[in-house]
């Protein structure tokens, strides 16, 4: 379960609205208590896809003509290193990352899955015509085959508590 406050979710939504129609991204820092990941801080990070040449240093560009910050996000690994170091000094760890899906549902895409890591929470915000709507958190299965919906608890109010039937993973698509 991922637990965060109304204010933290608001901050993520404001970032998603501000960067629309581009995808926004940021990091979730906090403490891992086993069953529950407690978010202590959320931090907005730049989408490196705004700088295609730099982005190409880190991920292969599949279709440069159509890939942009409007449909892709990438976090600068140097920023990650900086954020992780700072977090460690405050006793926090990286619990996961958030990003927005402009005019798309808050479900991971196949591209998301191919680039994801197990254990991290991937919080996705759907932004419809500039307005943040639904947020869902997902965790990649250990064999990397499927994203599973993660329970998201906002300020002690459980929302989006969709539990997959029979304990089977909820396919992302």
């Amino acid at each position: 379960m991922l637990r965060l406050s109304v204010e933290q979710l608001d901050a993520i939504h404001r970032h998603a609205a501000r960067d629309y129609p581009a995808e926004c991204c940021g990091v979730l820092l906090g403490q891992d208590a086993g069953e529950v990941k407690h978010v202590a801080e959320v931090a907005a990070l730049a989408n490196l896809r705004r700088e295609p040449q730099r982005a190409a240093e880190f991920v292969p560009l599949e279709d440069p003509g159509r890939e942009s910050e409007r449909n892709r996000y990438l976090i600068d690994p140097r920023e990650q290193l900086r954020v992780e170091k700072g977090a460690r000094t405050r006793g926090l760890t990286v619990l996961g990352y958030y990003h927005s899906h402009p005019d798309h549902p808050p479900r991971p895409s196949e591209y998301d899955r191919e680039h994801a890591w197990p254990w991290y929470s991937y919080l996705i915000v759907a932004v419809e015509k500039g307005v943040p709507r639904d947020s869902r958190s997902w965790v990649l299965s250990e064999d990397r085959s499927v994203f599973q919906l993660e329970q998201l608890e906002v300020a002690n109010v459980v929302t989006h508590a969709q539990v997959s039937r029979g304990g089977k993973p909820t396919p992302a698509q």
Partner: protein
Amino acid sequence: MAVKVIIPTPLRQYAGKQESVQIEAGTVGEALSGLTTQYAELRRHLYNDEGKIRSFVNVYLNDEDIRYLSKEQTPVKENDVLSIVPSIAGGVPSLNAAAGSILRCICS
């Protein structure tokens, strides 16, 4: 020479749940190879089938990306810190996001 390798949270479960591991090594490659010998489960997450570091894995020697040093041949010194930084990337299902929203407008 012992270097400290910082393990990112998703991979700690494959490294005895440790945040960092001390490895005796003379180069970055030796450090990573020593790490994956000690923790075999880490190997598939760090290397591809050809035995090369996966493209979605970034390795920093102190504050420098090893891509811009001598990659895996980069020498390491006592007390150096190697950080494994997983690439974080993704995007919407359709590459043509604008076309997608137009289609939805037509349909709804």
